[in-house]
């Protein structure tokens, strides 16, 4: 058995990096959408649906992500089979995206709800008194003020999500971690530490890139933040 050099390991790992990134991107986008929908249901106080959102966010926060992954992968196909929906051929990648979306969405609900509630009541009343339609009020007044409040929490959730994508290999997805395990197992204990240090380096780069991105957003949206009703800064 030849032991691969550092650069060979890096290129072997980067070969499969796109799988990790696709899972990450898909679950980040879908999770944000799901979180937004759940938050909407929650703040609008829709009877039965609201209780469901509470259960979803409590479940996703209390149960280890690895169990959530396994439940979606093993339990969802037979469960949906009872309703005549056949998903027995669901691939591990799809299951991973689904589980991470649920997890990210449930987690984000708390962040988004707090941010929405942080917008001063007077802002709603002012928009109403000016005769804004609900849609116009939401997009022009409420959303721009919600975003800067929600960004730090969203950034944290994103970092959690990035870290948790490292677990999808447990379902058999051949992502960076799956490849790393393979290299570590096939080199007879020669460069296990090296392989995982390289994986760590890749994740550190991704984490700090996304962190930087969130901070940039935070700077850009700072101007929408209002100190209070009276001390409003120049709002463009």
């Amino acid at each position, binding site marked *: 058995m030849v032991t691969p050099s550092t650069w060979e390991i890096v290129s072997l790992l980067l070969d499969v990096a796109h799988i990790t990134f696709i899972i990450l991107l898909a679950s980040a986008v879908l999770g944000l959408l799901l979180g937004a929908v759940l938050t909407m249901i929650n703040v609008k106080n829709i009877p039965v649906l609201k209780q469901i959102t509470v259960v979803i966010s409590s479940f996703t926060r209390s149960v280890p*992500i690895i169990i959530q992954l396994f439940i979606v992968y093993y339990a969802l196909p037979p469960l949906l089979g009872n309703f005549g929906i056949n998903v027995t051929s669901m691939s591990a990648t799809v299951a991973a995206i689904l589980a991470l979306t649920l997890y990210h969405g449930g987690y984000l609900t708390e962040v988004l709800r707090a941010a929405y509630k942080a917008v001063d009541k007077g802002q709603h009343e002012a928009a109403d008194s000016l005769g804004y339609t609900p849609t116009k009020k939401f997009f022009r007044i409420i959303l721009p003020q919600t975003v800067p409040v929600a960004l730090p929490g969203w950034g944290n959730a994103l970092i959690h999500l990035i870290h948790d994508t490292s677990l999808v290999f447990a379902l058999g997805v051949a992502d960076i971690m799956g490849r790393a395990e393979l290299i570590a197992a096939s080199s007879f204990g020669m460069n296990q530490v090296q392989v*995982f240090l390289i994986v760590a380096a890749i994740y*550190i780069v991704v984490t700090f890139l996304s962190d930087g991105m969130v901070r940039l957003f935070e700077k850009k949206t700072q101007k929408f933040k209002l100190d209070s009703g009276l001390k409003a800064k120049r709002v463009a």
Partner: protein
Amino acid sequence: MLNMEILVDNFFGILSVVPQTVALAITIFILSILIGTGMALVQEYNVPVLKQVVLLFKLFLRGTPLIVFIFIMYYSLPSIIGYFTGLMNLDYNANNISPVVILIVAVSLTVSSFQAETIRGSFLSVSYGQIEAARSLGYTPFQAFKRIITPQALVEALPEFGSAFLVVMKAISLGFMITVVDIFAEARLIAASNSYYVEAFVVAALMYWGVAALVVKLTGKYESYLVSRT
């Protein structure tokens, strides 16, 4: 649908490893608070070289997924310990080190880097006037720390500690990768033996949910008790 007989069977099977998992979580939690306090002190008192080490360490742990760090520890800790025991001429075979120890080290180091922030924040939140008042009453620094500052800082930190405990609880579910048996690993073992995967994982999820609900309730109670005292 779910097989009820298996479900009940699994329930008691998995319940038997809950105390073990909670004990492991408590150990890691206490260690992480101790290490976190150490890190916070190093940062607050600007200890030269150590401060840079702590900052670098935090940077590394913030960017690395826990499972990667667990693997790094799993593969490198025995040789690191072996190197030191070799230096001291100790007759100790580091390759026999238990995976539980490795898990404890990996998780408590990771969590401690977050605990350090919590602890720093909660001590900074106690106003300086409180320390001055204690001093004017003739308290020794240690008395002031124990009787005035810690109770107030604890109120501030308690909700964070509660969620940190849950993070630890969830984090050790990754121990199955290095053969540590906890709630999740036991569920996997049971599922592999009778191939009722859904039942086992549902029961495991319920256990975690129950522990989480209990911890939230207990910290809430303790917090209101502390608030009523301060």
